[in-house]
């Protein structure tokens, strides 16, 4: 079977790639001339390591695509390539901030449903200011915003609600009321982009609070139920609307 010739990675940035495509990288990432070439040609070759993001896998001299989507590239910090793919099912990844629902309390550990294949575990000591005597006030059915500390395919995912310096920095139990709903993962990433238009336009409407979990879950709380539902409907629909339609919808709302 003839092997496919790969295409240069830079040529395909911003285009659709399919699983099985091989992307060739410029020669200075080769294993043969590793040390010497990088040191000598400091001007031409970007120093540092290349990040091979989700949807890509390293194979020999190049990158193998494993998911279909658009290829993205970030030139800063050594460069990074990844595939911007769309999916609804979340796979726990270490370091991601997610919203979990407490399903059970098993001794010292809470079981959270994060939308993955397994429930994640969260120790009661992983909250800010929690000690053995001072337990956090968590009940079944509560919403928790935390990050994964262990998440791979061999072990059960574990979450914590503090960061590496011991501060909660916004994580922990999400308060009362509000509305939780699920969207696709691509939309979450779009909303979390810096200077997202949707968020900026929505923030002009009413005062509200928003928590976005990387597992596709969004929690919204506004002053009245009606405002909350309006924001929920806009967020759910904006995935399939063009920016023109979205502006029209928002103009109608703010006119009301």
């Amino acid at each position, binding site marked *: 079977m003839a092997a496919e010739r790969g295409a240069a990675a830079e040529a395909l940035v911003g285009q659709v790639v399919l699983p099985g495509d091989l992307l060739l*990288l410029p020669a200075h990432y080769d294993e043969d001339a590793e040390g010497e070439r990088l040191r000598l040609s400091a001007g031409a070759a970007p120093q540092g390591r290349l990040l091979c993001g989700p949807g890509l896998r390293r194979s020999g001299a190049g990158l193998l695509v494993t998911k279909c989507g658009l290829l993205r590239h970030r030139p800063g910090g050594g460069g990074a390539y990844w595939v911007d793919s769309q999916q609804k099912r979340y796979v726990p990844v270490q370091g991601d901030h997610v919203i979990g629902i407490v399903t059970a309390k098993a001794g010292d550990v809470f079981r959270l449903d994060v939308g993955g294949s397994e429930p994640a575990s969260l120790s009661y000591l992983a909250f800010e200011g929690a000690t053995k005597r001072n337990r956090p006030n968590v009940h079944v059915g509560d919403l928790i915003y935390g990050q994964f500390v262990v998440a791979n395919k061999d072990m059960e995912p574990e979450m914590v609600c503090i960061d590496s310096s011991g501060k909660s920095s916004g994580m922990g139990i999400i308060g009362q009321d509000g509305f939780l709903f699920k969207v696709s993962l691509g939309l979450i990433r779009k909303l979390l982009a810096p200077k997202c238009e949707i968020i900026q336009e929505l923030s002009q409407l009413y005062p509200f609070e928003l928590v976005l979990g990387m597992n596709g879950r969004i929690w919204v709380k506004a002053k009245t139920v009606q405002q909350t539902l309006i924001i929920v409907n806009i967020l759910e629909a904006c995935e399939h609307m063009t920016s023109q339609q979205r502006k029209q919808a928002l103009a109608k709302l703010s006119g009301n």
Partner: protein
Amino acid sequence: SYIIEERSFLRCEDLVYGRMSFKGFNPEIEKLMIQMNSKCKEEEIEEDDKMEADVSDEEMARRYETLVGTIGKKFLRKRDQRVLKDDDEDDEVEEGNSNTRPSKRAKKMFLKPQD
């Protein structure tokens, strides 16, 4: 080699913090938003601090100049305080009691007996 495999989008893209609040709905989260997002843009904030100082650098320097003297006087011993006061008065009033002044001015030190 120099290729690292990464499964998280957080390392590739520049995503903001997931908890947000708008129009003052939750003031703590608004403070958090500024704090989290300023970790990326620390340079701008350093410049702003210089502009927003309530007391300018010159004023601070002047204040400290006199402050050191004032606090220093507090810790002088009693005799040294009289000496200081005499010095101040001396500038204004040159005449009068010039006999007692020199003796007071000289600190009383141990005089070795001449044998």
